[in-house]
Protein backbone atom coordinates (compact mmCIF):
# COMPACT_ATOMS: atom_id res chain seq x y z
CA UNK A 1 0.00 0.00 0.00
CA UNK A 2 1.26 3.47 -0.84
CA UNK A 3 2.37 5.19 2.34
CA UNK A 4 1.53 8.70 1.19
CA UNK A 5 -2.03 7.80 0.33
CA UNK A 6 -2.48 5.87 3.55
CA UNK A 7 -1.10 8.68 5.69
CA UNK A 8 -3.05 11.37 3.86
CA UNK A 9 -6.25 9.39 4.22
CA UNK A 10 -5.50 8.94 7.90
CA UNK A 11 -4.89 12.68 8.38
CA UNK A 12 -8.11 13.50 6.47
CA UNK A 13 -10.08 11.04 8.49
CA UNK A 14 -8.83 12.23 11.86
CA UNK A 15 -9.35 15.91 11.06
CA UNK A 16 -12.78 15.49 9.53
CA UNK A 17 -13.93 13.16 12.28
CA UNK A 18 -12.56 15.54 14.96
CA UNK A 19 -14.32 18.50 13.37
CA UNK A 20 -17.45 16.50 12.87
CA UNK A 21 -17.83 15.47 16.51
CA UNK A 22 -16.16 18.67 17.76
CA UNK A 23 -13.47 16.68 19.58
CA UNK A 24 -10.03 18.31 19.63
CA UNK A 25 -8.22 15.04 20.51
CA UNK A 26 -8.55 13.79 16.97
CA UNK A 27 -7.15 17.07 15.62
CA UNK A 28 -4.21 16.72 18.00
CA UNK A 29 -3.62 13.16 16.82
CA UNK A 30 -3.73 14.32 13.19
CA UNK A 31 -0.90 16.80 13.69
CA UNK A 32 2.08 14.35 13.76
CA UNK A 33 0.70 12.63 10.65
CA UNK A 34 0.34 15.94 8.78
CA UNK A 35 3.88 16.92 9.74
CA UNK A 36 5.19 13.58 8.55
CA UNK A 37 3.50 14.01 5.15
CA UNK A 38 4.64 17.63 4.84
CA UNK A 39 8.24 16.58 5.53
CA UNK A 40 8.00 14.33 2.48
CA UNK A 41 6.64 17.23 0.42
CA UNK A 42 9.31 19.61 1.58
CA UNK A 43 12.34 17.40 1.09
CA UNK A 44 11.17 15.24 -1.83
CA UNK A 45 13.40 15.18 -4.94
CA UNK A 46 12.48 17.81 -7.53
CA UNK A 47 13.97 16.99 -10.93
CA UNK A 48 16.89 14.61 -10.49
CA UNK A 49 19.57 14.71 -13.14
CA UNK A 50 21.70 11.61 -12.99
CA UNK A 51 24.22 10.32 -15.45
CA UNK A 52 24.97 6.61 -15.47
CA UNK A 53 27.85 4.83 -17.12
CA UNK A 54 28.34 1.11 -17.40
CA UNK A 55 31.77 -0.23 -18.20
CA UNK A 56 32.60 -3.85 -18.90
CA UNK A 57 36.08 -5.30 -18.63
CA UNK A 58 35.37 -7.27 -21.84
CA UNK A 59 32.47 -7.59 -24.22
CA UNK A 60 33.54 -10.84 -25.87
CA UNK A 61 35.01 -13.53 -23.71
CA UNK A 62 35.63 -17.23 -23.79
CA UNK A 63 33.48 -19.58 -21.75
CA UNK A 64 34.24 -19.36 -18.05
CA UNK A 65 36.20 -16.11 -18.19
CA UNK A 66 35.13 -13.59 -15.55
CA UNK A 67 33.87 -10.16 -16.59
CA UNK A 68 33.84 -7.15 -14.30
CA UNK A 69 30.92 -4.77 -14.65
CA UNK A 70 31.22 -1.30 -13.16
CA UNK A 71 28.35 1.17 -12.94
CA UNK A 72 29.03 4.80 -12.04
CA UNK A 73 26.27 7.25 -11.13
CA UNK A 74 26.95 10.98 -11.16
CA UNK A 75 24.54 13.52 -9.73
CA UNK A 76 24.35 16.44 -12.15
CA UNK A 77 21.51 18.22 -10.40
CA UNK A 78 20.51 19.16 -6.87
CA UNK A 79 21.28 17.12 -3.79
CA UNK A 80 19.70 13.67 -3.77
CA UNK A 81 18.92 12.60 -0.25
CA UNK A 82 18.44 8.99 -1.19
CA UNK A 83 19.16 7.25 -4.46
CA UNK A 84 19.17 3.54 -5.11
CA UNK A 85 19.91 1.52 -8.17
CA UNK A 86 19.62 -2.22 -8.59
CA UNK A 87 21.16 -3.82 -11.65
CA UNK A 88 19.24 -7.04 -12.32
CA UNK A 89 21.55 -9.72 -13.68
CA UNK A 90 20.54 -11.47 -16.88
CA UNK A 91 19.48 -15.06 -16.20
CA UNK A 92 22.28 -17.66 -16.21
CA UNK A 93 24.94 -15.13 -15.26
CA UNK A 94 26.77 -16.27 -12.17
CA UNK A 95 27.86 -13.51 -9.81
CA UNK A 96 31.31 -14.22 -8.44
CA UNK A 97 31.83 -11.14 -6.29
CA UNK A 98 30.86 -7.51 -5.78
CA UNK A 99 27.58 -5.64 -5.46
CA UNK A 100 24.81 -5.40 -8.04
CA UNK A 101 23.35 -2.20 -6.69
CA UNK A 102 23.89 0.72 -4.36
CA UNK A 103 22.01 2.94 -1.96
CA UNK A 104 23.50 6.34 -1.29
CA UNK A 105 23.09 10.06 -0.82
CA UNK A 106 24.60 12.20 -3.55
CA UNK A 107 25.62 15.82 -3.21
CA UNK A 108 25.68 17.90 -6.44
CA UNK A 109 28.51 16.64 -8.67
CA UNK A 110 29.15 13.64 -6.45
CA UNK A 111 29.46 10.13 -7.86
CA UNK A 112 28.73 6.69 -6.52
CA UNK A 113 29.65 3.41 -8.11
CA UNK A 114 29.33 -0.29 -7.68
CA UNK A 115 31.00 -3.16 -9.43
CA UNK A 116 30.64 -6.87 -9.62
CA UNK A 117 32.24 -9.79 -11.37
CA UNK A 118 30.23 -12.34 -13.31
CA UNK A 119 30.91 -15.52 -15.18
CA UNK A 120 28.74 -17.19 -17.76
CA UNK A 121 28.31 -20.08 -20.05
CA UNK A 122 28.21 -19.69 -23.84
CA UNK A 123 25.64 -17.16 -24.97
CA UNK A 124 24.83 -13.50 -25.38
CA UNK A 125 23.73 -11.69 -22.26
CA UNK A 126 21.97 -8.34 -22.32
CA UNK A 127 22.11 -5.97 -19.39
CA UNK A 128 18.89 -4.00 -19.34
CA UNK A 129 18.76 -0.23 -18.93
CA UNK A 130 19.22 0.96 -15.39
CA UNK A 131 16.54 2.71 -13.38
CA UNK A 132 17.36 5.00 -10.49
CA UNK A 133 14.93 5.58 -7.67
CA UNK A 134 15.26 8.76 -5.68
CA UNK A 135 13.42 9.91 -2.61
CA UNK A 136 13.71 11.97 0.54
CA UNK A 137 15.27 10.33 3.58
CA UNK A 138 11.90 9.10 4.80
CA UNK A 139 11.16 7.56 1.41
CA UNK A 140 7.76 9.21 1.07
CA UNK A 141 8.07 11.01 -2.26
CA UNK A 142 9.74 8.81 -4.83
CA UNK A 143 10.79 9.35 -8.39
CA UNK A 144 11.98 6.76 -10.85
CA UNK A 145 14.34 7.86 -13.59
CA UNK A 146 15.45 5.77 -16.56
CA UNK A 147 19.21 5.98 -16.87
CA UNK A 148 20.01 3.89 -19.94
CA UNK A 149 23.47 2.35 -19.64
CA UNK A 150 22.51 -0.99 -21.13
CA UNK A 151 25.19 -3.38 -22.31
CA UNK A 152 25.90 -6.89 -23.44
CA UNK A 153 28.43 -9.67 -23.12
CA UNK A 154 29.04 -12.34 -25.69
CA UNK A 155 30.47 -15.52 -24.26
CA UNK A 156 32.04 -17.35 -27.17
CA UNK A 157 32.13 -21.13 -27.42
CA UNK A 158 35.21 -23.10 -26.54
CA UNK A 159 37.53 -23.71 -29.45
CA UNK A 160 39.67 -26.84 -29.55
CA UNK A 161 42.83 -26.90 -31.58
CA UNK A 162 42.35 -29.63 -34.14
CA UNK A 163 44.62 -30.80 -36.94
CA UNK A 164 43.82 -30.11 -40.58
CA UNK A 165 40.98 -32.34 -41.69
CA UNK A 166 41.50 -33.59 -45.22
CA UNK A 167 38.52 -32.78 -47.42
CA UNK A 168 38.12 -33.38 -51.14
CA UNK A 169 35.41 -31.26 -52.71
CA UNK A 170 35.00 -31.53 -56.46
CA UNK A 171 35.28 -27.80 -56.89
CA UNK A 172 37.96 -25.58 -55.41
CA UNK A 173 38.53 -21.87 -55.58
CA UNK A 174 41.26 -20.07 -57.51
CA UNK A 175 43.36 -19.22 -54.49
CA UNK A 176 46.16 -21.31 -53.05
CA UNK A 177 45.23 -23.42 -50.09
CA UNK A 178 45.69 -26.91 -48.72
CA UNK A 179 43.05 -28.88 -50.58
CA UNK A 180 44.12 -31.01 -53.56
CA UNK A 181 42.43 -29.43 -56.60
CA UNK A 182 42.60 -32.39 -59.00
CA UNK A 183 44.44 -30.10 -61.40
CA UNK A 184 48.05 -30.27 -62.56
CA UNK A 185 50.33 -27.39 -61.73
CA UNK A 186 52.63 -26.25 -58.98
CA UNK A 187 52.43 -28.42 -55.90
CA UNK A 188 54.23 -31.16 -54.07
CA UNK A 189 52.10 -34.26 -54.74
CA UNK A 190 52.81 -36.12 -57.98
CA UNK A 191 49.84 -35.78 -60.29
CA UNK A 192 51.00 -37.10 -63.74
CA UNK A 193 53.32 -36.43 -66.67
CA UNK A 194 52.88 -34.09 -69.56
CA UNK A 195 54.94 -33.00 -72.56
CA UNK A 196 57.82 -30.73 -71.71
CA UNK A 197 57.03 -27.04 -72.05
CA UNK A 198 59.47 -24.22 -72.41
CA UNK A 199 60.25 -22.86 -68.96
CA UNK A 200 60.02 -26.20 -67.13
CA UNK A 201 62.96 -26.68 -64.84
CA UNK A 202 65.37 -29.57 -65.41
CA UNK A 203 64.31 -31.01 -62.04
CA UNK A 204 60.80 -31.37 -63.35
CA UNK A 205 61.79 -33.52 -66.36
CA UNK A 206 60.72 -37.14 -66.02
CA UNK A 207 63.83 -38.79 -67.49
CA UNK A 208 62.49 -42.31 -67.27
CA UNK A 209 59.35 -41.53 -69.33
CA UNK A 210 61.36 -39.41 -71.77
CA UNK A 211 63.82 -42.31 -72.34
CA UNK A 212 60.96 -44.57 -73.39
CA UNK A 213 59.83 -42.06 -76.02
CA UNK A 214 62.92 -40.87 -77.91
CA UNK A 215 61.20 -37.98 -79.71
CA UNK A 216 59.32 -36.48 -76.78
CA UNK A 217 60.48 -35.05 -73.47
CA UNK A 218 58.10 -35.37 -70.49
CA UNK A 219 57.84 -33.27 -67.38
CA UNK A 220 56.31 -34.25 -64.04
CA UNK A 221 53.10 -32.51 -63.14
CA UNK A 222 52.04 -31.90 -59.57
CA UNK A 223 48.63 -31.53 -58.06
CA UNK A 224 47.62 -27.99 -57.27
CA UNK A 225 46.49 -27.21 -53.73
CA UNK A 226 43.79 -24.63 -53.45
CA UNK A 227 41.33 -23.14 -51.06
CA UNK A 228 37.78 -24.41 -51.13
CA UNK A 229 34.31 -23.43 -50.06
CA UNK A 230 33.30 -25.13 -46.83
CA UNK A 231 29.75 -24.88 -45.61
CA UNK A 232 29.24 -25.75 -41.96
CA UNK A 233 25.75 -26.81 -40.95
CA UNK A 234 24.94 -26.97 -37.27
CA UNK A 235 21.82 -28.93 -36.46
CA UNK A 236 19.93 -26.84 -33.88
CA UNK A 237 16.79 -28.95 -33.71
CA UNK A 238 15.95 -29.59 -30.11
CA UNK A 239 14.75 -33.12 -30.74
CA UNK A 240 18.17 -34.07 -32.10
CA UNK A 241 19.92 -33.55 -28.79
CA UNK A 242 19.83 -35.05 -25.35
CA UNK A 243 20.64 -33.14 -22.23
CA UNK A 244 21.06 -33.74 -18.54
CA UNK A 245 20.69 -31.12 -15.84
CA UNK A 246 24.32 -30.21 -16.10
CA UNK A 247 25.32 -30.97 -19.65
CA UNK A 248 23.79 -30.83 -23.09
CA UNK A 249 25.04 -32.59 -26.20
CA UNK A 250 24.27 -29.40 -28.06
CA UNK A 251 27.16 -27.68 -26.31
CA UNK A 252 29.48 -30.38 -27.66
CA UNK A 253 28.09 -29.83 -31.14
CA UNK A 254 28.73 -26.09 -30.86
CA UNK A 255 32.30 -26.72 -29.72
CA UNK A 256 32.79 -29.02 -32.71
CA UNK A 257 31.39 -26.43 -35.13
CA UNK A 258 33.58 -23.66 -33.68
CA UNK A 259 36.71 -25.81 -33.81
CA UNK A 260 36.01 -26.91 -37.37
CA UNK A 261 35.36 -23.33 -38.49
CA UNK A 262 38.65 -22.21 -37.04
CA UNK A 263 40.53 -25.11 -38.60
CA UNK A 264 39.10 -24.58 -42.08
CA UNK A 265 39.61 -20.82 -41.92
CA UNK A 266 43.21 -21.25 -40.79
CA UNK A 267 43.80 -23.33 -43.91
CA UNK A 268 42.67 -20.41 -46.06
CA UNK A 269 39.26 -21.77 -47.00
CA UNK A 270 36.09 -19.78 -47.42
CA UNK A 271 33.73 -20.87 -44.67
CA UNK A 272 30.04 -20.19 -44.10
CA UNK A 273 27.73 -21.36 -41.34
CA UNK A 274 24.10 -22.36 -41.32
CA UNK A 275 22.23 -23.02 -38.09
CA UNK A 276 19.19 -25.13 -38.71
CA UNK A 277 16.67 -25.23 -35.90
CA UNK A 278 13.69 -23.15 -34.93
CA UNK A 279 14.73 -20.92 -37.79
CA UNK A 280 17.54 -20.89 -40.30
CA UNK A 281 20.34 -18.50 -39.38
CA UNK A 282 23.23 -18.15 -41.73
CA UNK A 283 26.57 -16.49 -41.69
CA UNK A 284 27.62 -15.75 -45.22
CA UNK A 285 30.84 -17.36 -46.40
CA UNK A 286 34.05 -15.44 -45.91
CA UNK A 287 37.74 -15.74 -45.20
CA UNK A 288 40.08 -15.02 -42.36
CA UNK A 289 39.89 -13.72 -38.84
CA UNK A 290 36.92 -11.46 -39.36
CA UNK A 291 34.90 -14.39 -40.62
CA UNK A 292 36.07 -16.39 -37.62
CA UNK A 293 34.72 -13.70 -35.33
CA UNK A 294 31.42 -13.62 -37.23
CA UNK A 295 31.01 -17.37 -36.94
CA UNK A 296 31.91 -17.40 -33.24
CA UNK A 297 29.46 -14.59 -32.58
CA UNK A 298 26.76 -16.57 -34.37
CA UNK A 299 27.64 -19.71 -32.43
CA UNK A 300 27.58 -17.77 -29.16
CA UNK A 301 23.89 -17.17 -29.75
CA UNK A 302 23.07 -20.64 -31.03
CA UNK A 303 20.34 -22.39 -29.12
CA UNK A 304 18.43 -25.56 -29.81
CA UNK A 305 14.87 -24.81 -30.79
CA UNK A 306 11.76 -26.61 -31.88
CA UNK A 307 11.90 -26.77 -35.65
CA UNK A 308 8.73 -26.11 -37.61
CA UNK A 309 9.64 -29.04 -39.81
CA UNK A 310 11.11 -32.13 -38.27
CA UNK A 311 13.70 -32.97 -40.93
CA UNK A 312 16.38 -31.19 -42.86
CA UNK A 313 14.49 -30.78 -46.12
CA UNK A 314 14.47 -26.99 -45.91
CA UNK A 315 18.21 -26.64 -45.75
CA UNK A 316 19.10 -23.97 -48.28
CA UNK A 317 21.13 -25.96 -50.79
CA UNK A 318 21.86 -22.92 -52.93
CA UNK A 319 23.54 -21.28 -49.99
CA UNK A 320 26.54 -23.47 -50.73
CA UNK A 321 28.47 -23.15 -54.00
CA UNK A 322 27.98 -26.16 -56.28
CA UNK A 323 30.18 -29.19 -55.62
CA UNK A 324 31.75 -27.61 -52.54
CA UNK A 325 32.44 -29.23 -49.19
CA UNK A 326 29.65 -29.44 -46.63
CA UNK A 327 30.30 -30.37 -43.03
CA UNK A 328 27.21 -31.25 -41.04
CA UNK A 329 27.39 -31.36 -37.26
CA UNK A 330 24.36 -33.35 -36.16
CA UNK A 331 23.46 -36.48 -34.19
CA UNK A 332 21.54 -37.50 -37.36
CA UNK A 333 18.07 -38.92 -37.41
CA UNK A 334 16.69 -41.58 -39.76
CA UNK A 335 14.53 -39.03 -41.54
CA UNK A 336 17.60 -36.95 -42.48
CA UNK A 337 19.00 -39.58 -44.83
CA UNK A 338 17.02 -38.50 -47.89
CA UNK A 339 18.22 -34.91 -47.60
CA UNK A 340 21.83 -35.98 -47.24
CA UNK A 341 21.52 -38.27 -50.28
CA UNK A 342 20.11 -35.32 -52.13
CA UNK A 343 23.15 -33.21 -51.21
CA UNK A 344 25.43 -35.97 -52.36
CA UNK A 345 23.62 -36.36 -55.67
CA UNK A 346 24.13 -32.67 -56.34
CA UNK A 347 27.86 -33.20 -56.17
CA UNK A 348 28.62 -31.89 -52.72
CA UNK A 349 31.31 -33.59 -50.69
CA UNK A 350 29.79 -34.36 -47.31
CA UNK A 351 31.39 -34.85 -43.95
CA UNK A 352 29.11 -35.62 -41.03
CA UNK A 353 30.31 -35.06 -37.48
CA UNK A 354 27.77 -36.97 -35.47
CA UNK A 355 27.74 -36.73 -31.66
CA UNK A 356 26.65 -40.13 -30.44
CA UNK A 357 23.35 -39.75 -28.61
CA UNK A 358 23.22 -43.43 -27.69
CA UNK A 359 26.47 -43.48 -25.75
CA UNK A 360 25.57 -40.13 -24.17
CA UNK A 361 22.30 -41.48 -22.87
CA UNK A 362 23.74 -44.80 -21.75
CA UNK A 363 26.37 -43.00 -19.71
CA UNK A 364 23.56 -41.42 -17.68
CA UNK A 365 21.42 -44.52 -17.19
CA UNK A 366 21.77 -47.17 -14.48
CA UNK A 367 23.72 -50.28 -15.41
CA UNK A 368 20.88 -52.81 -15.66
CA UNK A 369 20.35 -55.73 -17.98
CA UNK A 370 17.38 -54.11 -19.68
CA UNK A 371 19.36 -50.92 -20.24
CA UNK A 372 22.29 -52.85 -21.65
CA UNK A 373 20.06 -54.73 -24.10
CA UNK A 374 18.26 -51.57 -25.15
CA UNK A 375 21.59 -49.80 -25.56
CA UNK A 376 22.89 -52.60 -27.74
CA UNK A 377 19.83 -52.39 -29.99
CA UNK A 378 20.09 -48.61 -30.21
CA UNK A 379 23.77 -48.87 -31.12
CA UNK A 380 23.01 -51.38 -33.83
CA UNK A 381 20.37 -49.11 -35.28
CA UNK A 382 22.83 -46.24 -35.26
CA UNK A 383 25.53 -48.28 -36.96
CA UNK A 384 23.08 -49.25 -39.67
CA UNK A 385 22.10 -45.62 -40.11
CA UNK A 386 25.68 -44.45 -40.40
CA UNK A 387 26.58 -47.31 -42.75
CA UNK A 388 23.83 -46.14 -45.08
CA UNK A 389 25.49 -42.75 -45.13
CA UNK A 390 28.82 -44.34 -45.87
CA UNK A 391 27.36 -46.27 -48.76
CA UNK A 392 26.26 -42.95 -50.26
CA UNK A 393 29.85 -41.73 -50.17
CA UNK A 394 29.47 -39.58 -47.08
CA UNK A 395 32.29 -39.47 -44.55
CA UNK A 396 31.06 -39.87 -41.01
CA UNK A 397 32.70 -39.31 -37.66
CA UNK A 398 30.73 -41.11 -34.98
CA UNK A 399 31.74 -39.04 -31.99
CA UNK A 400 31.34 -40.28 -28.45
CA UNK A 401 31.13 -36.94 -26.69
CA UNK A 402 32.92 -38.27 -23.62
CA UNK A 403 36.04 -38.23 -25.83
CA UNK A 404 37.40 -34.70 -26.39
CA UNK A 405 36.69 -33.48 -29.91
CA UNK A 406 40.35 -32.84 -30.68
CA UNK A 407 41.05 -36.51 -30.01
CA UNK A 408 37.99 -37.83 -31.79
CA UNK A 409 38.78 -35.86 -34.91
CA UNK A 410 42.22 -37.48 -35.22
CA UNK A 411 40.57 -40.52 -36.76
CA UNK A 412 39.54 -38.36 -39.71
CA UNK A 413 43.10 -37.33 -40.39
CA UNK A 414 44.47 -40.87 -40.58
CA UNK A 415 45.06 -42.11 -44.12
CA UNK A 416 42.03 -42.67 -46.24
CA UNK A 417 39.66 -43.61 -43.42
CA UNK A 418 36.25 -42.71 -44.73
CA UNK A 419 34.08 -43.97 -41.97
CA UNK A 420 34.79 -44.19 -38.32
CA UNK A 421 32.54 -46.23 -36.11
CA UNK A 422 32.93 -47.33 -32.57
CA UNK A 423 32.52 -51.04 -32.00
CA UNK A 424 29.66 -52.63 -30.20
Amino acid at each position, binding site marked *: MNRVILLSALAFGLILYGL*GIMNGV*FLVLALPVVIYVLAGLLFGPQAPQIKAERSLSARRVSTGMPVTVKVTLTNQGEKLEQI*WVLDPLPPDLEKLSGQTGCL*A*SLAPGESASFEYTVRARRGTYLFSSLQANTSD*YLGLVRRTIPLGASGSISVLPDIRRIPTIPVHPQQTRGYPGTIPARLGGPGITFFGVREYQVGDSMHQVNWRASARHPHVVYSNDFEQERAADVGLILDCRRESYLATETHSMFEDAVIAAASLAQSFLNDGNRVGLVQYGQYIAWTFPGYGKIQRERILAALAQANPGVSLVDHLEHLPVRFFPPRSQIVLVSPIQNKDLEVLYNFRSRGYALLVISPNAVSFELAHLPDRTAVRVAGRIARLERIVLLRQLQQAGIRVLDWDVTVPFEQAVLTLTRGSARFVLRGL
Partner: protein
Amino acid sequence: MKSVRLAFLISLGLSLACMAAAFLSLSGWIQIVIGLSIGAQWAFLVWNGRRTYWFSFLGLLALLVYGAALNLPTIWLLGSLVTLLAAWDLGEFTAHLSAFDPDQVSPLLVRNHLNRLLVVAGAGLALGGIALIIKIRLEFGSAVLLGLLVFIGLAGAVRFLRGNL
Protein backbone atom coordinates in the same frame (compact mmCIF):
# COMPACT_ATOMS: atom_id res chain seq x y z
CA MET B 1 20.96 -2.24 9.62
CA LYS B 2 21.18 -3.46 13.17
CA SER B 3 20.76 0.07 14.49
CA VAL B 4 17.63 0.55 12.38
CA ARG B 5 16.09 -2.66 13.70
CA LEU B 6 16.97 -1.66 17.23
CA ALA B 7 15.41 1.77 16.71
CA PHE B 8 12.31 0.06 15.30
CA LEU B 9 12.00 -2.16 18.36
CA ILE B 10 12.46 0.79 20.70
CA SER B 11 9.83 2.84 18.84
CA LEU B 12 7.38 -0.03 18.80
CA GLY B 13 8.00 -0.76 22.46
CA LEU B 14 7.44 2.87 23.39
CA SER B 15 4.28 3.02 21.32
CA LEU B 16 2.90 -0.11 22.97
CA ALA B 17 3.89 1.15 26.41
CA CYS B 18 2.12 4.50 25.84
CA MET B 19 -0.93 2.71 24.52
CA ALA B 20 -0.95 0.35 27.46
CA ALA B 21 -0.64 3.30 29.85
CA ALA B 22 -3.59 4.97 28.14
CA PHE B 23 -5.80 1.89 28.30
CA LEU B 24 -4.68 1.12 31.84
CA SER B 25 -6.58 4.21 33.00
CA LEU B 26 -9.80 2.38 32.02
CA SER B 27 -8.51 -1.08 32.93
CA GLY B 28 -8.84 -2.06 29.28
CA TRP B 29 -6.85 -5.29 29.57
CA ILE B 30 -8.34 -6.78 26.46
CA GLN B 31 -7.21 -3.84 24.35
CA ILE B 32 -3.76 -4.03 25.91
CA VAL B 33 -3.48 -7.73 25.07
CA ILE B 34 -4.69 -7.10 21.51
CA GLY B 35 -2.20 -4.25 21.13
CA LEU B 36 0.67 -6.35 22.47
CA SER B 37 -0.14 -9.29 20.23
CA ILE B 38 -0.34 -7.06 17.15
CA GLY B 39 2.96 -5.47 18.14
CA ALA B 40 4.60 -8.86 18.67
CA GLN B 41 3.40 -10.01 15.26
CA TRP B 42 4.71 -6.84 13.67
CA ALA B 43 8.10 -7.22 15.32
CA PHE B 44 8.22 -10.82 14.12
CA LEU B 45 7.44 -9.75 10.54
CA VAL B 46 10.10 -7.06 10.54
CA TRP B 47 12.65 -9.44 11.98
CA ASN B 48 11.94 -11.93 9.20
CA GLY B 49 12.06 -9.33 6.46
CA ARG B 50 8.39 -9.51 5.40
CA ARG B 51 6.61 -6.47 4.12
CA THR B 52 3.04 -6.46 5.40
CA TYR B 53 3.68 -3.90 8.12
CA TRP B 54 0.82 -1.62 7.10
CA PHE B 55 -1.59 -4.24 8.35
CA SER B 56 -0.07 -4.22 11.85
CA PHE B 57 0.23 -0.45 11.69
CA LEU B 58 -3.44 -0.08 10.85
CA GLY B 59 -4.39 -2.48 13.63
CA LEU B 60 -2.57 -0.47 16.29
CA LEU B 61 -3.87 2.75 14.79
CA ALA B 62 -7.42 1.49 15.06
CA LEU B 63 -6.81 0.79 18.73
CA LEU B 64 -5.52 4.33 19.19
CA VAL B 65 -8.56 5.85 17.50
CA TYR B 66 -10.76 3.65 19.65
CA GLY B 67 -8.87 4.94 22.67
CA ALA B 68 -9.41 8.53 21.54
CA ALA B 69 -13.13 7.83 21.17
CA LEU B 70 -13.11 6.55 24.79
CA ASN B 71 -11.53 9.85 25.90
CA LEU B 72 -8.36 8.19 27.19
CA PRO B 73 -5.52 10.51 28.31
CA THR B 74 -4.49 12.34 25.14
CA ILE B 75 -0.84 12.71 26.06
CA TRP B 76 -0.41 8.91 26.09
CA LEU B 77 -2.30 8.57 22.84
CA LEU B 78 -0.20 11.29 21.23
CA GLY B 79 3.03 9.67 22.40
CA SER B 80 1.82 6.30 21.18
CA LEU B 81 0.86 7.69 17.75
CA VAL B 82 4.18 9.51 17.22
CA THR B 83 6.24 6.47 18.13
CA LEU B 84 3.91 4.26 16.09
CA LEU B 85 4.59 6.43 13.04
CA ALA B 86 8.31 6.19 13.74
CA ALA B 87 8.08 2.40 14.09
CA TRP B 88 6.21 2.14 10.80
CA ASP B 89 8.82 4.30 9.07
CA LEU B 90 11.67 2.23 10.51
CA GLY B 91 9.96 -1.02 9.55
CA GLU B 92 9.68 0.18 5.98
CA PHE B 93 13.27 1.36 6.07
CA THR B 94 14.43 -2.04 7.34
CA ALA B 95 12.65 -3.74 4.45
CA HIS B 96 14.16 -1.22 2.03
CA LEU B 97 17.66 -1.86 3.37
CA SER B 98 17.22 -5.62 3.23
CA ALA B 99 17.21 -5.39 -0.60
CA PHE B 100 20.87 -4.40 -0.41
CA ASP B 101 23.98 -5.98 0.99
CA PRO B 102 25.19 -4.22 4.12
CA ASP B 103 28.30 -3.07 2.23
CA GLN B 104 26.14 -1.27 -0.31
CA VAL B 105 24.44 0.93 2.23
CA SER B 106 26.12 4.15 3.25
CA PRO B 107 26.14 4.56 7.08
CA LEU B 108 25.72 8.30 6.57
CA LEU B 109 22.43 7.68 4.82
CA VAL B 110 21.15 5.62 7.75
CA ARG B 111 22.23 8.27 10.22
CA ASN B 112 20.55 11.01 8.18
CA HIS B 113 17.37 8.99 7.98
CA LEU B 114 17.28 8.51 11.73
CA ASN B 115 18.02 12.21 12.29
CA ARG B 116 15.20 13.27 9.94
CA LEU B 117 12.80 10.90 11.62
CA LEU B 118 13.79 12.20 15.02
CA VAL B 119 13.16 15.79 13.89
CA VAL B 120 9.77 14.95 12.32
CA ALA B 121 8.65 12.91 15.33
CA GLY B 122 9.89 15.60 17.71
CA ALA B 123 8.06 18.30 15.77
CA GLY B 124 4.88 16.22 15.75
CA LEU B 125 5.11 15.57 19.47
CA ALA B 126 5.88 19.23 20.24
CA LEU B 127 3.07 20.59 18.07
CA GLY B 128 0.66 18.05 19.47
CA GLY B 129 1.75 18.99 23.01
CA ILE B 130 1.23 22.68 22.29
CA ALA B 131 -2.16 21.90 20.77
CA LEU B 132 -3.12 20.13 23.98
CA ILE B 133 -2.34 23.26 25.97
CA ILE B 134 -3.99 25.79 23.67
CA LYS B 135 -7.75 25.74 23.84
CA ILE B 136 -9.74 27.37 21.01
CA ARG B 137 -13.52 27.42 20.98
CA LEU B 138 -14.90 26.77 17.50
CA GLU B 139 -18.41 27.54 16.32
CA PHE B 140 -20.07 25.10 13.93
CA GLY B 141 -19.60 27.42 10.92
CA SER B 142 -15.91 27.93 11.70
CA ALA B 143 -15.45 24.20 12.07
CA VAL B 144 -17.02 23.55 8.65
CA LEU B 145 -14.88 26.29 7.11
CA LEU B 146 -11.76 24.86 8.73
CA GLY B 147 -12.74 21.40 7.52
CA LEU B 148 -13.08 22.68 3.99
CA LEU B 149 -9.71 24.39 4.18
CA VAL B 150 -8.09 21.23 5.47
CA PHE B 151 -9.78 19.20 2.76
CA ILE B 152 -8.57 21.53 0.00
CA GLY B 153 -5.07 21.78 1.45
CA LEU B 154 -4.54 18.08 1.98
CA ALA B 155 -6.15 17.19 -1.36
CA GLY B 156 -3.66 19.51 -3.06
CA ALA B 157 -0.81 17.93 -1.14
CA VAL B 158 -1.90 14.42 -2.09
CA ARG B 159 -2.32 15.42 -5.74
CA PHE B 160 1.18 16.83 -5.71
CA LEU B 161 2.61 13.74 -4.10
CA ARG B 162 0.79 11.35 -6.43
CA GLY B 163 2.05 13.31 -9.41
CA ASN B 164 5.56 12.69 -8.19
CA LEU B 165 5.22 8.97 -7.62
